[in-house]
């Protein structure tokens, strides 16, 4: 047998993801943490570990916590990510529920339509939105007419200032991340036994009560999974705020990027990245907690 050793193969297969994680996440992350406690220098690379004991410079973190720029960027990122998550949930839940209620044939077509946008480059889709939101586009003009019709005459505008606004950032993020909400929601809703709905109807509940009492509580793991899949990348989003956002309301991803490339303050960029990760650990642990609980009920 020699090389074909069952246990050896098993260890290798289990070991691969760990190896991947160590090589491409833990090691780089350790470098980032190290960089965040280094000192900014005008050299290349632009940091050094200052000569004196304890070789650790915590002043970057001190600045991070005291300078309003960073706190504000964190706040904007978290609110934008939260808004994006809520809108995705509001739009995605009915879509995911509808997917479970249609015939199997149309279900496959609709599921494919949900992931179809991924066939096009992400950047291309953001540029398409930039075109749509531009002052002279049919989309902007249509919304402008609706706006002018709804509001008093003296509020009328020739076009809506959609581009380069926080609104545009949230809109494009909702568009981009919607499939990440729909798919886990669909996966959790699809597992529910439709007989349970009948049982609740039979016991006297109207359809909306059945939804609240039976469907919604059982889809909580799906809501949390979808919420995290949207919230975490949305909080660190760089491309969308850079392309459609407003420079006056920077998101944290943009701050990291600016610190790295423009200010060349690598320790600060690293410190912001570490802080962002620390913020995301909380929700992820919440998710694992629910996941474990959901598995316990099977």
């Amino acid at each position, binding site marked *: 047998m020699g090389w074909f050793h069952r246990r050896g193969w098993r260890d290798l297969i289990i070991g691969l993801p760990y190896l991947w994680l160590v090589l491409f996440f833990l090691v780089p992350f350790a470098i980032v943490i190290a960089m965040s406690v280094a000192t900014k220098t005008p050299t290349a690379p632009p940091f050094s570990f200052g000569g004196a004991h304890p070789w650790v410079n915590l002043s970057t973190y001190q600045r991070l916590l005291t300078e309003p720029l960073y706190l504000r960027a964190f706040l904007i990122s978290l609110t934008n990510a939260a808004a994006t998550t809520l809108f995705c949930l509001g739009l995605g839940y009915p879509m995911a529920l509808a997917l479970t209620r249609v015939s199997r044939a149309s279900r496959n077509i609709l599921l494919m339509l949900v992931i179809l946008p991924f066939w096009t480059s992400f950047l291309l889709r953001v540029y398409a939105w930039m075109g749509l939101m531009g002052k002279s586009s049919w989309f902007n003009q249509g919304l402008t007419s609706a706006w002018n019709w709804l509001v008093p005459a003296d509020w009328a505008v020739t076009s809506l200032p959609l581009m380069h606004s926080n609104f545009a950032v949230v809109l494009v993020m909702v568009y981009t991340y919607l499939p990440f909400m729909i798919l886990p929601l669909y996966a959790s809703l699809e597992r529910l*036994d439709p*007989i*349970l709905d*009948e*049982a*609740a*109807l*039979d*016991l*006297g*509940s*109207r359809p909306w009560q059945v939804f609240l*009492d*039976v469907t919604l*509580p*059982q889809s909580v793991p799906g809501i949390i999974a979808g919420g995290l899949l949207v919230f975490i990348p949305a909080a660190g989003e760089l491309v969308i705020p850079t392309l459609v956002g407003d420079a006056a309301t920077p998101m944290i991803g943009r701050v990291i990027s600016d610190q790295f490339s423009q200010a060349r303050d690598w320790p600060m960029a690293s410190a912001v990245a570490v802080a962002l990760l620390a913020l995301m650990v909380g929700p992820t642990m919440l998710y694992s907690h629910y996941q474990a609980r959901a598995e316990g*009920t*099977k």
Partner: protein
Amino acid sequence: MADFLQIQGVSKSFGPFQAVRDVTLSVAQGEIFSLLGGSGCGKTTLLRMLAGFEDPTAGRIFLDGRDMAGVPPWARPVHMMFQSYALFPHMTVEANISYGLKHDALTPAQRRDRVREMLDLVQLTPTATRKPHQISGGQRQRVALARALARQPKLLLLDEPLAALDKKLREHTQFELMSIQARTGVTFIVVTHDQEEAMTLSDRIAVMDRGQVQQVGSPTEIYEYPVNRFVASFIGAITSFDAEVVARDAGFLTLHVPDFGGQVTTREADFAPGTRVTLALRPEKLVISKDRPPGNAVQGVVKDLAYFGKDSLYRITLASGALVQAHAVNQARGAAMVADWDDQVWLSFQPSAAIVLGG
């Protein structure tokens, strides 16, 4: 009383498929009534129409004098015990039982009392705070029963109530169901494919086939006096022979049975001489003997025998090649059996034991 539940000419079609055809039944209050049939006979569709999950294509359903047409499931005083139990997995046993009660105008104390009463009825008080996945199959079945009974329905629908239980638990639960029905007085409609289950549980049975009711009657009537070949063969084992009526007189019918190579006498039935009929004989009504007895008798060879302990099943080939099943109770302990493989035996039966069916 017999008008408590009335099903009048109810049909249900799904596209071109007719699941239920012109069913008319009436059920008395407090009765255990079974719908018995194989899969696809329409019994489940009929049950779902009673629950309000399906609307009849034609016909009407009256419950306690009220027309159920257009009444949605949540507004019917009818509750169902689902075959899979359909317990809410995210709720405790207690919460499952009290779920329907939130729609009733009860004070929290009254609701608690009702739940306690139900837990007591099905002997589940110790498991009140567990989740459905933490209790056994038999316990889940009782939670489903308690949940369906909690709102005191006028009608309780039970879809294959015992199918998911193992044999031993099934027998025990059967009697428990009957005792709970007697204590609560709720009318039970049981859907089952298991004829034994239907026989032991029910006051009356409706045997269904291909969407139609074939016969309605007490278990004894259905077993001893089936009205057609389907009912006769669906309920219990039976051997059927083609026959022709030779004479009808003085309470007796004389039949010519080609497989017997002669004539047999049965109790009088409404068939004129010359009519082609079916002679049906249940295994336990046949007597096996070595010597020719007087009366209806036919000779055959034991081809197969199965010893079950309390009784034995014989498969006997007649001279015509027809195969007959006969049961013999093993009365004497350790005694030699009536017959052995390849023995020549006589099969005989009383005129009253034979079933004569048209066609």
